[in-house]
């Protein structure tokens, strides 16, 4: 049996079975993955030894997630969050670590060990928290933002913590272990390669700064020409490959200088948040991130060692509950200190109460450096896993118990109201540009997509913001925010793609209103059939404008011309409506004789429509300003 295929089958099958059920039950996807992991790992024993290896791959899901989060976060927003990242995050890590160290001292452990354990438990799970917040639509709430700030600080603090842990070694243990590990390397798992081993402190600092500068500068100046070049090749999978290359390259660079890969890609994401490739990158990376993150959760579930658990069941449970309550207490205190709203306080405290995936890394590293004995580490590892397993339950508690109570209590004003809503415009050629300019000038927020990178680039140069990407792709439309949009404007010139686009959006997002540009009447009918709410023929108005100018140039009275044009427009609209059913019966105009006859009639009736007099033909075209009959005065006088 091919081992890799078999394992891939097991992991995927477990996910496919467990996650939809968990979601249906309202438990969220994270708990679904964790349960799937427990099923295939400790319960059924289908997977085992390779879990740790898989986990290293799966951790890359976290790296990708932070890249995606970075893409959503413009540098300006990040800067606005600085007080929270340092204040809230810094205090959370320090207070939690010190309190746990104190508890460890009371229990009679060595102070260094206590501090190491404290730092390990201070970390929360970026993966679980951000995934769950996103799934529940809580990312943009104040509590969600505060949680994010703390998680970001924890990521940052990983570097000094890794440097600190070797110094905490207890005399007895260190003698045993210290020999093999000289590097302060990131993660016992990947720590084999390092550019900075043996560098003095200031040298290391310089290298780190250089690496960060490289990511920022290359992200800003190099990546865009590269992406543009690749986009012009129109090879979609190469674009995906280059997006992956970017992320893996940065992760590699960060690992080489002992920085967190997640942090590096997050930074790259922020740098690219303003670029025209944002939505394309998002939709390309999203599936990888989703799968890898799911895999990661499965490995956490599968990695629970039931042997150790049953032997120390009471200890593990008591430890888990005490660690979580202590973290919650610290978080709640900080939330009060930083004046979060009551609802956000609870979201913040319940959400971040678990230990995180960094815990596994740090535990392994601590054992390696002789700070924590191996048997204790196994128990602590279970505590980390169990606390992660309990987190979805805490989110459910927040949803069911706290959020409803608060919703009825205080009717807080919804923040960030977008008065007109967002409009997604597909295609920014001659047609889409006009639409976009008028909407923007009227204060409407638009998201513009076009699959010609050079066009987007040109528009950016004149100050119009658009994004590169093929709007016919459902995932890209999704990344562009179609699900929250009020209107979708189809302004592309590819007729078939336009119809497919309308069909897809109508089916998937029934509430979005669709306005589409049609090439001709046949295309107009096709778009109507596909579900467009309003279709406009692309050259109808300009042809009419030119005909108006022509009649005026011939010397016809401008107001009469205006009226004729109005009558023409009306006649045309009526004709289009009346012919749709005939067309619908048989769209093949060449063979649809009834439709042909109707078209002839429509064309023939135009002159009557424009020139007939209301009084003679009872036509509606010139209803206004016809003088009364000549004998009217006698009639009126007789009545008086």
């Amino acid at each position: 049996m091919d081992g890799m295929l078999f394992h891939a089958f097991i992991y995927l099958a477990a996910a496919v079975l467990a996650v939809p059920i968990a979601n249906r039950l309202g438990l969220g996807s994270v708990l679904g993955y964790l349960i799937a992991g427990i099923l295939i790992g400790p319960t059924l024993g289908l997977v085992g030894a390779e879990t740790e290896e898989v986990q290293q791959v799966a951790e890359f899901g976290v790296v990708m997630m932070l890249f995606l989060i970075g893409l959503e976060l413009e540098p300006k927003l990040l800067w606005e969050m600085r007080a929270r990242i340092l204040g809230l995050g810094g205090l959370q890590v320090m207070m939690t670590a010190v309190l746990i160290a104190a508890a460890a001292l009371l229990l009679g452990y060595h102070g260094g060990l206590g501090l190491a354990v404290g730092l390990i438990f201070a970390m929360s799970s970026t993966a679980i928290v951000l995934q769950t917040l996103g799934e529940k639509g809580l990312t943009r709430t104040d509590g969600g933002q505060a949680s994010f700030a703390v998680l970001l600080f924890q990521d940052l603090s990983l570097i000094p913590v890794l440097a600190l842990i070797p110094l905490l070694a207890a005399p007895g243990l260190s003698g045993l272990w210290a020999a093999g590990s000289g590097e302060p390397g990131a993660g016992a798992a990947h720590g084999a390669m390092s550019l900075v081993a043996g560098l003095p402190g200031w040298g290391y600092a310089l290298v780190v700064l250089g690496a960060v500068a490289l990511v920022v500068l290359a992200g800003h100046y190099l990546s865009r020409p590269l992406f543009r070049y690749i986009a012009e090749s129109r090879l979609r999978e190469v674009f995906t490959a280059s997006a992956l290359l970017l992320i893996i390259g940065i992760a590699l660079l960060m690992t080489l200088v002992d920085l967190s890969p997640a942090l590096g890609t997050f930074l790259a994401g922020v740098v690219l948040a303003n670029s025209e490739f944002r939505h394309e990158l998002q939709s390309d990376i999203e599936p990888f991130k989703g799968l890898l993150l799911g895999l990661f959760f499965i490995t956490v579930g599968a990695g629970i060692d039931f042997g150790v658990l049953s032997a120390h069941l009471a200890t593990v449970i008591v430890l888990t509950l005490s660690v979580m309550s202590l973290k919650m207490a610290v978080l709640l205190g900080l939330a009060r200190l930083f004046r979060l709203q009551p609802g956000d306080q609870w979201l913040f405290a319940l959400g971040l109460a678990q230990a995180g995936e960094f815990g596994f890394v740090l535990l392994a590293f601590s054992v390696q450096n002789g700070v924590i004995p191996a048997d204790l580490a196994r128990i602590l590892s279970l505590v980390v896993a169990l606390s992660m397993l309990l987190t979805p339950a805490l989110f459910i508690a927040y949803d069911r118990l706290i959020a409803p109570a608060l919703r009825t209590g205080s009717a807080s004003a919804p923040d960030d109201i977008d008065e007109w809503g967002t409009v997604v415009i597909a295609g920014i050629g001659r047609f889409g540009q006009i639409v976009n300019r008028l909407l923007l000038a009227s204060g409407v927020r638009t998201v513009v997509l076009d699959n010609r990178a050079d066009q987007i680039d040109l528009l950016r140069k004149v100050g119009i913001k658009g994004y590169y990407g093929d709007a016919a792709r459902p995932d890209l439309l999704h990344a562009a925010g179609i699900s929250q949009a009020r209107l979708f404007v189809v302004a592309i010139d590819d007729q078939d793609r336009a119809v497919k686009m309308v069909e897809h959006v109508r089916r998937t997002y029934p509430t979005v209103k669709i306005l589409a540009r049609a090439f001709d009447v046949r295309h107009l009918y096709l778009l109507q059939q596909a579900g467009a709410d309003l279709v406009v023929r692309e050259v109808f108005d300009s042809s009419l404008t030119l005909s108006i100018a022509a009649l005026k140039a011939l010397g016809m009275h401008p107001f009469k011309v205006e009226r004729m044009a109005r009558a023409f427009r009306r006649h045309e609209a009526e004709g289009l409506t009346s012919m749709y059913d005939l067309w619908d019966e048989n769209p093949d105009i060449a063979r649809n004789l009834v439709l042909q006859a109707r078209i002839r009639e429509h064309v023939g009736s135009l002159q009557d429509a424009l020139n007939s007099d209301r009084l003679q033909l009872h036509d509606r075209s010139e209803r206004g300003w016809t003088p009364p009959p000549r004998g009217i005065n006698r009639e009126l006088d007789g009545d008086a």
Partner: protein
Amino acid sequence: MPSHAPLAASPGRVEVGVITARRRILCLFAHPSIDRSEANRPLFDATARVAGVTLVDLYAEYPTGEIDVDREQARLRGHDVICFMHPLYWYSTPSIFKEWQDLVLEHGFAYGIGGTALHGKLFFNALTAGGPEQAYCAAGYNHFTIRELLCPLEQTARLCGMVFLPPFALFGARTAVDEGRIGAHVTDWVRVLEALRDHRLDLAAAVPLTKLNADLDAIIREP
């Protein structure tokens, strides 16, 4: 406006022997269906031939109804006599004149604080009415005189500091061609325009009249 101050101060005085510059006349014309016009069309054509008169076809200039306020205000500033030429529609002007008033006669321009741009100018209507003259009185089926029906315009002119003159009116316009009255009416119209232009029209005598063209010999001094 200082240049018009003497006129504003004595609108009723006959300007005999006073040599002043010619009055500049602005005829704003509105007929939405000029193709069908029998009375306004010859009036329009005749007006175009009078020297010193600016003739504007509002429906031609603004076929979509979008009026250029700045341009219209500049025109008003550049003339001493403002005339609305139109058929009488429902005892008032065609609708574009209402839009024109609503937009052009702005506060601070035509009335209110600083709104003195029109002070001392003359204002009147040159209109054609379908009903016979005898219908425009308390006993007729229109119940009011034409002058009474134009009260809103008279008050508008007054608020803007303009002198309101009675309308130059053609009654029974639907039968005027058949009855051979158009030619004489057009001649009268040109005579009135020239007299206004050359300060030969006795404003004091004209102001109280019901219609301007009741007896032209009584108010116009021939050169």
